[in-house]
């Protein structure tokens, strides 16, 4: 890797990255507790008032997406920083703005009882049937806007750095290799390709998000300004879907970097790989329409495109990324530890999570599955067993290369505990979906309660496992810099 920049100031860089991971990890664990409370409430085990339930719902969704995106951005920044020159100042601003945004959102939700779900579907923020007031809505919307601004700053910086180093975003995706102008050997590294993809889709998402957020703010302040709700919905999902989706594309860099290192096998960039990532870029931008399959007033071609492209979006991961990971691991004599184990597991989570997603993106299925618990079923698998596991994998990796903190039996227990619990939670959601249980309901009818209780109990184990992961990472942060594994040398070289 001739383009790699020497490990200048690795230490202070690591500090920033760990800050984003700690913040992200802790928030994720906290949000899990709200998840458990909601499932217990739905299962009829505990009593939660309607207002509290929907506040939990709002904070759970917002918090999970925000925290996972924050930590994943840290991971991306860590690896991308090895190939291009990123600004530390911008990353600090990013962290600060995200923090401010989070504080505003939390105040808005808990002190002012704002509960529009994290999708803040226009015109719900302004028309709450007196459940919350203007202040709560504005705090939440401005919080999201500030959070989004933080992310936008970060992606402007990554985009700028990639263009500076590789010439253009097209070249960052390796288009000059695809067109034959450059040899495959000189293609940009995987971390750069993935970062370029995420930069493109997320800048688009954030611009759409800023527009729809400001529009909601205008509507909340002055309700006589009304907007086309369909256009608002399109923008909301263009923002929400892409932004949530991009998390896994940032986090997957961990898998790309770790598995070949552990298996001691090269995982080279091929033309197929570049094609796959270009496909992912285009599909991710367009398939948000599969959230609107039940909006019959949408142009029909857009909805059919939504289904077709959602199907196609499974191909890059099923044929290239997951398959490539399996090839690297197969009969490699790989050394399994927490980091490599979690990385491998995350690929499983991503791939199996794609299946119910594709099924639900089928219009005829969506007709009876849309807004049932099938939907959270698919994304809990995909995010909980995919993206978030990648983040934990990175935490263990960092602990290993940068400290002498050892993995214990407890960590191994946490690994299996997490996997099984997350599996159980996802399956529980899918079963509920197949039973027609609507999502985002504060109460359940008796026939729907059992899976929810089951999921809540699994959730308790999930929190235990996550706590163990985070404690390990915190121990690393305390002992940072003490030389650990031999992998460290490889990295410095």
């Amino acid at each position, binding site marked *: 890797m001739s383009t790699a920049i020497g490990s200048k100031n690795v230490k202070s860089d690591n500090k920033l990255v760990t800050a984003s991971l700690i913040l992200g990890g802790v928030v994720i664990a906290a949000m899990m507790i709200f998840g458990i409370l909601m499932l217990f409430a739905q299962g009829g085990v505990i009593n939660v008032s309607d207002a509290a339930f929907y506040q939990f719902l709002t904070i759970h969704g917002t918090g999970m997406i925000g925290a996972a995106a924050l930590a994943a951005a840290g991971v991306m920044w860590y690896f991308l920083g090895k190939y291009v020159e990123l600004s530390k100042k911008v990353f600090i601003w990013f962290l600060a703005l995200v923090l401010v945004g989070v504080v505003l959102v939390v105040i808005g939700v808990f002190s002012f009882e704002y509960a529009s779900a994290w999708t803040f579907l226009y015109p719900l923020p302004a028309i709450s049937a007196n459940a919350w007031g203007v202040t709560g809505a504005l705090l939440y919307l401005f919080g999201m806007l500030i959070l989004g601004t933080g992310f936008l700053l970060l992606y402007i910086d990554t985009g700028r750095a990639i263009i500076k180093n590789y010439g253009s975003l097209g070249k960052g995706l390796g288009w000059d290799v695809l067109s034959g102008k450059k040899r495959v050997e000189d293609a940009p590294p995987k971390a750069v390709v993935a970062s370029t993809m995420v930069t493109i889709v997320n800048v688009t998402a954030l611009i759409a998000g800023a527009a729809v957020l400001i529009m909601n703010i*205008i509507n909340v*302040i*002055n309700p*006589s300004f009304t907007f086309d709700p369909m256009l608002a919905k399109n923008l909301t999902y263009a923002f929400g879907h892409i932004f949530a989706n991009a998390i896994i594309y940032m986090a997957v860099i961990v898998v790309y970097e770790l598995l070949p290192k552990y298996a001691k096998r090269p995982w080279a960039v091929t033309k197929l790989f570049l094609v796959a990532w270009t496909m992912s870029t285009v599909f991710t931008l367009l398939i948000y329409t599969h959230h609107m399959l039940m909006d019959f007033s949408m142009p029909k071609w857009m909805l059919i495109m939504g289904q077709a492209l959602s199907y196609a979006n499974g191909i890059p991961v099923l044929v290239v990324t997951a398959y490539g990971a399996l090839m690297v691991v197969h009969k490699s004599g790989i050394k399994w530890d927490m980091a490599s184990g979690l990385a491998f597991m995350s690929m499983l989570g991503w791939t199996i999570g794609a299946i119910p997603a594709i099924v639900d993106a089928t219009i005829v299925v969506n007709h009876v599955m849309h807004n049932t618990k099938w939907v959270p079923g698919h994304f809990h698998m995909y995010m909980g067993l995919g993206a978030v596991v990648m983040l934990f994998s990175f935490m263990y990796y960092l602990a290993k290369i940068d400290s002498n903190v050892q993995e214990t039996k407890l960590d191994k227990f946490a690994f299996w505990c997490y996997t099984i619990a997350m599996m159980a939670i996802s399956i529980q959601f899918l079963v509920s979906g197949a039973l027609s249980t609507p999502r985002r309901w504060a109460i359940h009818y008796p026939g729907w309660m059992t899976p929810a209780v089951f999921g809540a109990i699994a959730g308790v184990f999930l929190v235990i496992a996550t706590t163990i992961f985070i404690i390990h990472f915190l121990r690393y942060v305390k002992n940072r810099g003490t030389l650990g594994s031999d992998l460290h040398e490889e990295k410095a070289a």
Partner: protein
Amino acid sequence: MKKKLRNIILISFSIVLSFCLFYFGTDGFQAYTAESARIYRLMEEKPFFPNVTLEDSKERVYEFTEFEGKYAVLTFIYTSCTDVCPQLEMNLAEVYKQIPSELLGEEIMFLSISFDPDRDDPKTLEKYQHFFSSDGETWRMARINNEEQLSSLLDEFGVIVLPDGEGGFTHNSAFYFVGRDGELLDVMDYKKTDEAAVKIMDTLQNDMEG
């Protein structure tokens, strides 16, 4: 270090300046359109209804002082209007229905004033009345023949009327609530009829009790 400090001061200063610009430019984050600013100003000024001569659908001619001692709810319309005015009047009818009939004509009057006197003669107004079941007594429709009086009234109450070149007008719409002495009490959103009715009733009741 000194440079850094100066930059921070400059940035803080510019933020404060921007804040002030918006604060004063929107009457304290209240009015973002000229329409809302107009209402805001009207509420500050509380103009009096100028004395104009009205001619109503029953061809009666009288001055506005005729209504002295009574509250009045006003709208400004023209009958050949195809979009806003019918809606405006329909909503006014809804407010009208919510006022107890013993108060109508005694304590409060409803009045729709046309700003198109050329076409809206008493006959036209009478026809128009029927669409909204206005009785012509407690809810009257009238025109102002004197051009000068008309424009002074529109000016005073901030009604902006733009001819669209095809015989129609574009204009701003609202319910105007006028007090017993002809002073403007409130300008109300014509889309929120219930709110308007409640406000009117509250004012009436307070007044009658006190």
